């Protein structure tokens, strides 16, 4: 049977549920309020806040898209098992890997739609504020969407091993603490002797590198320009391999799991 059709069907279910649960709408409304509130400052006579508004926009985009990604991905598998919706699904001639991939693609689609909705609102807010929409902003969005793929994969995998609440908490820590962990490892690695450095390097490599996908500081500040194309390609490769490794880990737990 056509695998893509299977993944599409499962993914569409995830997406429909996400839309109908109104998660995306709540995020969109919150994001819109914050961004428009920032834009409203212009009417109070506070001019020259372009950098601030852009910074706020990328911060809102980053935070809310992370929330959508984690909340959507963390409950997919545990909810299926708890609500027993898994039985009629797995009674069909599909493999558990098909199910995982379908769920994963659905979570990515829901997250991307949420992100693009917020990005559209942001673009409108920036236009109201007469902020130029630069190429680096497009690249920021592309990289962010790639980072969200990694985040969905990590959260889905964690949810295969722990409760959805624990998976969500872990994912939030990993996502928002990514820069902090990396800086801590760097400082510790540099302070440690050369013999110890490979250990820190290995730990750093194992942790998901979300912060690498965040080009927000370049997009918000002035005159940075976009990153070279090799960076996008390298991050794309990282996304594929890291997400693949994560989904494989989820599968190794899920494939024999009694339900």
């Amino acid at each position, binding site marked *: 049977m056509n695998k893509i059709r299977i993944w599409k069907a499962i993914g569409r279910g995830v997406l429909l549920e996400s839309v109908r649960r109104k998660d995306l709408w709540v995020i969109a409304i919150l994001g819109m309020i914050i961004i428009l509130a920032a834009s409203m*400052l212009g009417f*109070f006579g*506070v*001019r*020259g*806040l372009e*950098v*601030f508004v852009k*910074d706020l926009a990328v911060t809102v985009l980053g935070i809310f898209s992370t929330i959508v990604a984690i909340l959507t991905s963390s409950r997919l598998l545990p909810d299926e098992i708890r609500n027993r919706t898994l039985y009629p699904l797995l009674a069909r001639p599909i493999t558990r890997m098909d199910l995982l991939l379908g769920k994963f693609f659905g979570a990515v689609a829901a997250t991307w739609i949420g992100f693009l909705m917020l990005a559209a609102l942001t673009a409108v807010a920036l236009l109201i504020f007469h902020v130029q929409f630069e190429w680096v902003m497009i690249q920021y969005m592309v*990289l962010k969407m790639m980072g969200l793929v990694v985040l969905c994969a990590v959260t889905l995998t964690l949810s295969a091993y722990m409760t959805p609440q624990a998976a969500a908490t872990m994912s939030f820590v990993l996502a928002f603490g990514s*820069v902090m962990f*990396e*800086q801590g490892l*760097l*400082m510790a*690695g*540099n*302070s440690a002797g050369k013999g110890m*450095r490979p250990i*820190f*390097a290995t730990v*750093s*490599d194992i942790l998901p*590198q979300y*912060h*690498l*996908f*965040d*080009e927000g*500081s*370049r997009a*918000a*500040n*002035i*005159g*940075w320009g976009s*990153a*070279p194309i090799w*960076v996008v390609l*390298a*991050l794309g490769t990282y996304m594929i391999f890291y997400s693949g490794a994560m989904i494989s880990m989820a599968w190794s737990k899920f494939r024999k799991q009694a339900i």
Partner: protein
Amino acid sequence: MRFIPIIAIIGSAAAGNFVKDFGPTINPPYIPANYDAQETHASTSILGQFRTSISSWLWLRTDLYLHNGVEMRQMTEAERKSGMSTEDAADDGHKKLMNEESVLTTVPSKDRDFRGIFGDIERATSAYKDMHHHTHNDPVAALPLFRLMTWLDPTFVPGWVQGAAIIGRDRSDAAAIKAVEYLKEGERQDPFSVSIVMEIGEIYITRLNNLPKAVTYLEQARSMGKHRDWVSEDAENTALEQTYRWLALCYRNLEQTQMMRQVASEGLKRYPDDIVLAHVLYQPPALMKPQYQKEWAREKISEQKSTAKVDDPLE
């Protein structure tokens, strides 16, 4: 046994009811008699917390914007001891001005990054420039943010003080007057702040050359500050030390020696290590190297104290 927790709770409640002041009170609020306590209501207090948080966040972001998004951090003690120094910047004077002699970019330069390609990617995707190419944005561009900070939280003192510094950056009198007006607005919003009032006095001295006017504001700052007991690193504490210095120097230039001595000795009582105040009070030998002046001043103070000749208004 099972009643012990209940007894403990009741006991604590009773103790809380009868013991009104438990432990020492630090920094008792100084409230001028004519102050309209608009910020003392509970709801205002909660809202105030929120506004202060936003203003503090804006403050941090502004610092980041001035570095055009390049995040920096202080060196760790280990880094400093290992002889690591900030890469030689092209503009050494600027580096000193921005107090960046012991800072590093949070994204490390290639030579102190063991992450290989991940490090290269991070340097390419984040706002990163090594310290050789480090520049600062014009602070004037950040002025709207200072206005926003003080608009959100009128009691956010750094917003008033730094904002005034930016407004008055143009060396004209008109700019200085605008800066004073901005600070006076701050004073109306936060009449407790020594920093704001001291800054007004400083502008009158350094920019408008109006010492009598400066003395008025500095005396106001001195009067507010001397009732308080801050922890040593408090910005307001530093402002009070500055107040004593400027005030002593003002009286010296106005040739009011008695007042100069009174202020300097009061200041030294509070800040015994302050070389400027020691200078004013004891006039050390002109050729003495600065590193010996502090010790000299300290000795002088103890000497004066032992002979009970110090004119100390606090005692």
